């Protein structure tokens, strides 16, 4: 039985947020000085474990609690309830031990010194992880080569493209050669080619060759499907499903999925589509609301029954059907069937 490297039990994080100020005059001023606080449960009693060498995905829309979960596991946040054990250490009681055995990669522009070169950035962080100078130098050369940055290694990071910065982020998380990697949306905002480079690196180099245990958060369902051994779908801070990608998709095997691309669709028709007989779930995503351009996803027991009814409704309402097809279930369909919303809503 493989060892559990990360394990959470009822892990919970609650944030306080200032409530909106209403009213006017002195009352408004008083409320601004002493605002009421409202609580937001960012992570709500989540339980999961990750086995050694596993690539585990946390899939959910923006604001679902993915980053908060990573921050709790890497000791940047202290939980309000529950526990998390990383490599045998409690994240609250032994934060320094946890920090030594993890590498954290975040997406975006932050987390690097832009006025230092790529090599200087890696050297700086290697020293904070107490890596001996000689080992650090060899490791940095190797890492830069792995992500094909060796030729630009001595240029300031501010001159790097977004994709290059992201590759540097990934290897920054590896300077201490940690057995565990926490990757928070590592392909966020990258062009498809750069994202593919990062994905291949994670799967082929980090998991297959280096046998790292990886927690990977994303809101790209294709990425989770392609990379992860198991996936937890998270929404409003709660894990609503957890299994292998295949098993998750099997959950909706008995559901037919129809995707229709239309123009001239009115926003008020969204509810009416959901009310069509035989439709179990429907989601309308407007790509250009001004011209009514949208993609409709319909879950039904039998596609052949709802297709005529839906097309008839759409034509009557003045919409123009651009494309209609029956598709295979994806992780997004799993999310729709569980929440009634699209992942990117």
């Amino acid at each position, binding site marked *: 039985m493989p060892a559990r490297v990360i394990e959470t039990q009822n892990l919970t994080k609650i944030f306080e947020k200032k409530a909106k100020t209403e009213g006017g005059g002195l009352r408004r001023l008083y409320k601004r000085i002493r605002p009421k606080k409202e609580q937001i449960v960012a992570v709500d009693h989540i339980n999961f474990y990750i086995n050694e060498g596993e690539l585990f995905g946390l899939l959910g829309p923006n604001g679902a609690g993915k980053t908060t979960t990573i921050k709790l596991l890497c000791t940047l946040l202290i939980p309000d309830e529950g526990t998390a054990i990383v490599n045998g250490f409690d994240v609250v009681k032994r934060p320094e031990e946890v920090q030594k055995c993890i590498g954290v990669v*975040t997406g975006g522009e932050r987390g690097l010194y832009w*006025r230092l070169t790529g090599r*200087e950035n890696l050297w*700086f962080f290697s*020293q*904070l992880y107490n890596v001996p100078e000689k080992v650090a130098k060899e490791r940095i050369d190797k890492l830069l080569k792995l992500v094909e940055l060796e030729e630009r290694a001595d240029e300031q990071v501010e001159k790097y493209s977004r994709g290059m910065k992201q590759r540097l982020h990934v290897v920054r998380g590896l300077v201490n050669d940690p057995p565990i990697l926490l990757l928070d949306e590592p392909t966020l905002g990258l062009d498809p080619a750069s994202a593919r480079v990062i994905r291949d690196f994670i799967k082929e180099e980090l998991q297959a060759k280096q046998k790292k245990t990886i927690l990977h958060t994303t809101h790209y369902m294709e990425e989770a499907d392609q990379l992860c051994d198991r996936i937890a779908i998270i929404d409003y801070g709660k894990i609503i499903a957890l299994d292998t990608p295949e098993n998750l998709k099997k959950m909706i095997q008995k559901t037919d999925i129809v995707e229709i691309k239309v123009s001239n669709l009115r926003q008020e028709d969204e509810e009416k589509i959901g009310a069509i007989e035989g439709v179990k779930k429907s989601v309308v995503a407007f790509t250009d609301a001004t011209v009514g351009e949208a993609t409709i996803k319909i879950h039904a027991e039998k596609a052949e029954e709802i297709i005529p009814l839906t097309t008839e409704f759409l034509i009557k309402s003045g919409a123009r059907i651009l494309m209609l097809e029956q598709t295979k279930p994806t992780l997004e369909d799993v999310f729709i069937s569980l929440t009634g919303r699209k992942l990117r809503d």
Partner: protein
Amino acid sequence: MNITKDWRTFKAVFLRNLKLYTSYRAWIIATVIWPLPLLAVNIYQYMAFGTAADVSDTLKPYGGIGMIVVGTVVYLLYNRLLWGTGVSIQSERWMGTIEVLFLTPTNKMIVLIASGLSSLIEASWWIFSIFFLGWAIFGVQPSITSWPAVFTCVISTMAALLSVGVFFAGFFVLTRAADQLASGLQAPIRFFSGVAFPVSALPQMLQCISYLIPVTYGISALRKCVLLSGDFGSIALDIAPLWFMTMIFLIVGQITLRIVERQTKKKGTLYLF
């Protein structure tokens, strides 16, 4: 405590700061120019009134201009160390690197001290240029009999000012207003510590505040050593409170920093500006 680990952290932070500093040419220019008018303003203010002897008996022993030179040097040291040490963690926030820094298993006190000491590279230029200007343009003649006493004064003052930075670092991270707080402290510190006049010229009540500020003791000790041929005996009453304050500020600063780190991790405000 792991000395090798702390040394690696110290060296990394020190060298990083040096590289960041030299990567901005404007910073270097500002460092060269900034202290010079500050000294000149204070000196010409006095010269407008006449000689030190004409102004007041309290100024006589110091010879006026020398007093201002020493006061300005210590004040600049305070300023540099407050920014270098106290604001260093907050500036990680501005650079977007505070989270990755807090992810590393480092001793944050070492990060603060290394940041503070690296800022002395700038400060050393300021000290040199102010003493040089004081001597070359305004004719200040130092009167030193004990170099060890001068050395002790400088080290004690720097240690105390570094500890002030450590003390404020936690508050700066907590309030997320390092810029405003550090700037807000400048004028009161300059006034109460007697940068351009002896503290004895202040009303008794205000002097009580002055003696709560380490800068006051640093200025007083250095003036005695550099201008009045002071030895260890004459500076003992300035150095003792300096060391006492250093201990207190370091201990309270370390505790505050731990509390603040926990608070920000609890509230989730670590990365917020």
